[in-house]
């Protein structure tokens, strides 16, 4: 069997890749996709800990299911916002959306 730390390394790497995507991409949808990567990294962590530390209590799995729910809700609302912005400004480059900046 694979040791627990390998799963944690994969989750950490995926989280950092998602972090880079959120902070460095210009397209709003790409930022949303990177957020999804980060949420998946968290989920891998939760399920790996569940399996290796307490496999006879479904707490880890339940937590992961709630993360699924929150991710789905957030993507729906986020995409609705992006479409609404696109109708107004005809582009979704987040760098150019600085109306509220001084």
């Amino acid at each position: 069997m694979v040791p627990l730390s390998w799963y944690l390394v994969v989750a950490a790497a995926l989280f950092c890749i998602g972090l880079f995507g959120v902070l460095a991409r210009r397209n709003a949808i790409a930022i949303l996709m990177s957020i999804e990567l980060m949420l998946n990294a968290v989920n891998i962590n939760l399920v790996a800990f569940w399996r290796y530390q307490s496999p006879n209590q479904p707490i880890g799995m339940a937590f992961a299911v709630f993360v699924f729910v929150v991710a789905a809700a957030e993507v729906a609302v986020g995409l609705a916002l992006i479409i609404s912005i696109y109708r107004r400004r005809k582009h979704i480059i987040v760098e150019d959306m600085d109306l509220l900046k001084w």
Partner: protein
Amino acid sequence: MTTVVFILFSLMVLGGGLMVVTASNIVHAAGALILSLFGVACLYVLLNAGFLAAVQVLVYIGAIAILIIFTVMLIRREGEDRLSFNSMWSGVLVIAVLAFVGLILILNQVWPLGMEGGAPDMNLDPTVQLGRMLLDPAGYVLPFEVASILLLSAMIGAIVIAREKRKE
């Protein structure tokens, strides 16, 4: 054998993730996201969480990824300048690498990165336990109900936000 399979799936996950953050064509990025999410589902299978793997494919790939692809295909960028990163990307790269190294160092203290260590045995029906716990009053029925209200409000919110304004 399990190690080889694990490395294969991890490569799928991380490779897909890298393509998501670096592809200049957003549709390719969405396709890479699907690959990455499928790799995560395979990792769940390796971790004996079969129900979560099926729900991952169903919810993430079957719903979220399709939503994202729909939106991507409906949005046309005017004057595509093909730049996928913004101006601070080198700084962010440094931060991300530092974060990763830091996380690995912290992890190494508690769970060393060696080759030993296996998973303990488990009684093989986590799905039934999960189902019972989600509906048990002493368990997680309250977060379960709140999650359903959250989904309802997200659905209504998305419909209201994305609706075209009717010309009164």
